[in-house]
Every structure is written in structure tokens, then in C-alpha cells.
């Protein structure tokens, strides 16, 4: 068996560290941890639906956190279902809608081609239960074309799910138009949006958008893991997908994770405390990083759009002739923590479906690196990253046969046996 402690030792602790993998796992600031602490053993450590003091204290945490979330989204009615992750909330949205509609004539589920797997996979699974699964293509920057969407939905469509912001390439959809286009075809079509990567980076107004369901995840806004949220519009009927003892809600069984919910509440508060300032800061760092990479490293491609239609925290670049997992390790050794859309990191034998969906070739997808900036990064962080990336890529290109093949003329017949 692999001794991980020895691997960690071999890696060593870099003297300078910059965490840019907030996409996969959020870094939790001390203030948020602080907010969780009392609820483990000082107060509110009870069950929020039991009528005793620690239970009522726990209930207050649930209630006040959700009230705050509602305010930030301009939600005036409807329910916020607490799950333990964005993945679970997305599954509830998709599978719960299908279960509730099981006997109806609406059998079509339409999702964009670049949805997160926690939307894509449950939707695709519904094919086995007799639903029709349709993906909407996106353009070279990841945008869904409203006209194409409008042609793909009809009065047999049960559900449309299109995310607000893409998690890998940062594309910000014109969601209001997409909702309108769908509702114009048939106002009964249910519209879900995965806002996991939009929350805290964009202003979201649920009433104005007109969506029926919306997903959030705590650890994507520097809250702790263990909290996902599904907003369900007033009057919309979905079915639970798991069963058990109910606490304060009908749609997800079991006790609420109260300390994590307290931390999530604090994370929401922090994200919205100086919302404009936070966003501005992220945008500046984002552009600094994009420009710096494209200027200093040859053979690179920016994935996703530029400017106002790109999420403020998203930088995604394909480094040609090198493979992404190697890059993540090479950068990790230099104290820079990122992730890749390479097949090697995806645990299936394919690279990122998002990068492929915008028309990149496989070899371009394999070399894609996602840098997820947060307001906890500084200019100095980005300067450090920019000082290391050219060195890192150069070293890996030294190792790669492809980099040199692209530069020199080589007897192909000789090399490809």
C-alpha cells in the first residue's frame, strides 16, 4: 500500500503557497471556522426540530442562515432545501422533478452540454426511466444560443437545467433571456439553474430571473463543506429522492449539519459584505493572470470568453504539448495549487467535457489548467504564479516528445513505430 505520508515528505512543504483550486475545494477563512465553533459543544449542538434549548438554538442557526441567503437572492417565497453538497442539491432538482412528474406526459429533460456532472449525470440517468435526454450545444466560448434552446424545448419538455456560470471556463450565460425563451415556448416548463459558481460573484435576483429552482454550495464561497442548498419556487412540487426521519424540512431527510450551516451563513455574510469590492479585486487578479500567461508562455489557448461575460474568478488556459496532471504536480512542487481538465485527473478516460464542448481538441483539453481565484489571493500571489508558470511549462515541454515534434522536423515514420 502507498504510504501517503512518504509521498507528502517527498513533496515537501513549499516555502511560498498560493491556493488556486477553490473550484474543487474551498479554502475556509478563520472567521468562518470561528463562526462554526460554538455549535459543536457550546450551544445549538442539539437537533433543530427537538423542543429543547440546544435544539431551538440549532433551529435559530438554520433559520437565520436561510433568511440571509434569501435576502442575497431576493427570494420572497418558496423553500430553501438544505442538502450536504451542491451535488446533492442538483440531484434533488433533477431526479426529484422527474420523480414528481413520473406519470405525466412531459418526458424531455434539456441541459446544456457544459453542465456540471452533478446535473449532467442524473439527467442522463433518466433515460433509463423513459425520459428523453437532450443536451444543448454551446459556442466556442461556452454560450448557449437562445434560438437553439428555443428550438430544443417543446410542450413535452419537463425540465431545463442551464447553469448561470460555468465552473471550468467561467462563461456567464444570459440566463434571463434563456429563461424567457423557454417560458415563451411553454410557461409550464420547469427551469433549474446551477448557480454554484455564480453565487457570491454575480448579483442574482431569483424573482427577476424567473427560475424555478436554483442550486448553491457552501464550499464554493469559502464556507465549509457539508452544505448545499436548493431553492424551490413556491408551489413547485418535487419529490424527495432519499427517505428517512425528517427534521425541519420534507425534501431531505436527516438532521441538518448545524455547525456547517453556521459557517455557511458567515461565508455568505463575508461574500456580500463588500460585494463590489470583492468582485473588482477578483477581476483584476483574473486579468493580470490571463494577460501574464498569454504573454509569457508560447502555445497557450485561453478557454472561455474574456471581459464582462467571464466569471471574475475564472482563468482557464490550455498549455499545448504538455499534459495537465503533470502541470498540477509541477506547480504543486512550486507551491501553486491548481487543477486540470486532463483525462488523468477526471477518473474517466476522457478529458473535460466542457473543454471539448467548446470545440477544443482532446490534446488541447489534456493540457488545460483551471486557476480559480478568490478574494483571499493578492497581487503578490499572482506575481509569484506568473514567475513560476513559464519555468514549469518549459520543464515539462523538455520532457514531452510532442513539444519538440512540433518544433523540429522529424521523421514521423521513425518515431511512430
Amino acid at each position: 500500500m502507498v504510504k501517503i505520508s512518504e509521498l507528502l515528505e517527498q513533496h515537501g512543504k513549499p516555502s511560498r503557497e498560493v491556493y488556486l483550486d477553490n473550484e474543487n475545494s474551498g479554502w475556509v477563512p478563520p472567521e468562518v471556522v470561528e463562526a462554526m465553533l460554538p455549535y459543536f459543544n457550546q450551544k445549538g449542538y442539539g437537533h433543530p426540530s427537538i423542543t429543547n434549548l440546544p435544539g431551538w438554538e440549532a433551529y435559530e442557526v438554520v433559520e437565520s442562515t436561510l433568511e440571509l441567503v434569501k435576502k442575497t437572492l431576493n427570494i420572497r417565497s418558496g423553500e430553501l432545501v438544505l442538502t450536504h453538497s451542491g451535488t446533492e442539491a442538483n440531484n434533488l432538482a433533477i431526479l426529484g422533478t422527474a420523480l414528481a412528474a413520473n406519470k405525466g406526459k412531459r418526458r424531455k429533460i434539456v441541459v446544456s452540454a457544459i453542465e456540471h456532472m452533478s446535473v449532467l449525470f442524473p439527467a442522463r440517468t433518466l433515460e433509463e426511466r423513459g425520459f428523453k435526454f437532450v443536451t444543448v450545444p454551446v459556442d466556442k466560448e461556452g454560450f448557449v444560443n437562445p434560438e437553439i434552446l428555443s428550438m430544443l424545448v417543446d410542450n413535452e419538455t419537463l425540465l431545463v437545467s442551464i447553469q448561470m456560470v460555468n465552473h471550468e471556463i467561467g462563461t456567464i450565460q444570459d440566463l434571463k433571456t434563456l429563461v424567457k425563451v423557454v417560458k415563451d415556448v411553454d410557461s409550464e416548463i420547469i427551469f433549474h439553474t446551477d448557480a454554484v459558481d455564480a453565487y457570491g460573484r454575480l448579483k442574482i435576483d431569483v424573482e427577476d430571473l424567473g427560475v424555478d429552482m436554483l442550486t448553491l454550495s457552501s464550499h464554493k464561497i469559502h464556507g465549509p463543506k457539508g452544505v448545499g442548498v436548493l431553492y424551490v419556487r413556491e408551489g413547485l412540487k418535487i419529490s424527495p429522492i432519499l427517505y428517512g426521519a425528517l427534521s425541519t424540512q420534507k425534501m431531505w431527510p436527516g438532521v441538518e449539519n448545524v455547525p456547517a450551516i453556521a459557517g455557511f451563513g458567515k461565508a455568505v455574510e463575508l461574500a456580500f459584505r463588500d460585494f463590489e469590492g470583492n468582485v473588482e479585486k477578483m477581476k483584476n487578479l483574473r486579468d493580470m493572470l490571463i494577460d501574464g500567461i498569454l504573454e509569457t508562455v508560447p502555445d497557450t489557448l485561453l478557454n472561455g470568453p474574456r471581459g464582462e461575460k467571464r466569471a471574475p474568478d475564472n482563468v482557464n488556459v490550455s498549455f499545448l504539448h504538455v499534459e495537465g496532471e503533470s502541470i498540477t504536480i509541477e506547480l504543486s512542487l512550486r507551491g501553486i495549487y491548481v487543477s486540470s481538465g486532463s483525462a488523468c485527473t477526471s477518473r474517466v478516460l476522457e478529458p473535460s467535457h466542457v473543454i471539448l464542448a467548446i470545440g477544443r481538441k482532446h490534446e488541447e483539453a489534456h493540457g488545460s489548467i483551471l486557476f480559480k481565484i478568490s478574494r483571499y489571493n493578492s497581487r503578490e500571489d499572482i506575481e509569484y504564479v506568473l514567475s513560476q508558470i513559464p519555468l514549469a511549462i518549459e520543464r515539462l515541454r523538455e520532457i514531452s516528445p510532442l513539444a519538440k515534434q512540433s518544433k523540429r522536423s522529424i521523421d514521423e515514420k521513425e518515431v511512430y513505430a
Partner: protein
Amino acid sequence: MSTRTPLAYSPKILELFKNPKNLGRMNDASVVSQAGSPACGDVITIYLKIDGDKIIDSSFESYGCAANIAAASILTEMIKGKTLKEAWDLTWEDVANELGGLPPIKYHCSILAVGGLKRAIRKYFEEIKREKPEWLPKDLSKEERQALEEEELIERMYKKYGVVT
């Protein structure tokens, strides 16, 4: 035994990733061969310098993950000084063991490396020396076959699982 499928490597892999041995193109190689494809995200090039029936030098290039780089590197270490027959008899499991173990989803890295080596040896006899020793089987070895299958299979999987419509 853990049933998890993470990318937790043995320290040896990381060590070889940091300081690969026998890295780079060999200009006076007796034979060169390659396994994998850019579309798969895995390419290993193996260079052999052969003197009589001995491999007197070997080097590699790798486009791929850390396990890929480490597998290719350690393989070139393992075969230096070996006869071609001894090198042929190496299996991907030998390489994986030498690396201190591989996560199951990384077995193919070791297979590609050994597949590349066997292709090189076969090519050496078939195309350069143009005479085959008795021990060299007519049928592809399991690593050559699996490398070929992976190259083809992955192309098919892309088509099957591709989300782009």
C-alpha cells in the same frame, strides 16, 4: 487494503517526476518507438542504443501524467545493460512494482512504457536487423496488444461518451 481510487502516488513516482533519469532524445539511438497518442493524453517515446544483443543505453520522452513519466524513466533504468531477451521478458507489473506500486487507474502508464519498449525491440529485429530471434513471439505481447487496444479503445470511448452533439 484500500478500495479508494485516488491519485496518491508512491514517493518513488514523485521522486522520478522531479528528477527523471534518462530523459531526452537520443540522437544516435539504434531504434526509437512510441506508444500512446496525444488524444489519449499519454505518449511515451523509447530510445534504445543496442550493441550486439545488449541494450547499452536507453532514454525516454513522455507526454503524460507523473506516473507516465516515472514509468518510462524507471523502465529505461531497468533495461540498461540487459540483453534484448532479458528486456523483452520484463512485464508491466515489474515496472509497477519497481515504482513502489501504481493506483489501478494508472496501470496503463506502466503498460504503455513496456509496450513501447517491446515495440522498439520488435522493430529493431523486424525493420533494422531484419532477422528475428527464436524467443521473439510472432504474436504481440500483452503489453503491445494492450497499448494498441488502449490507443484504439480510447478513440472509441471518446465517441461513445463524448457529450458534444
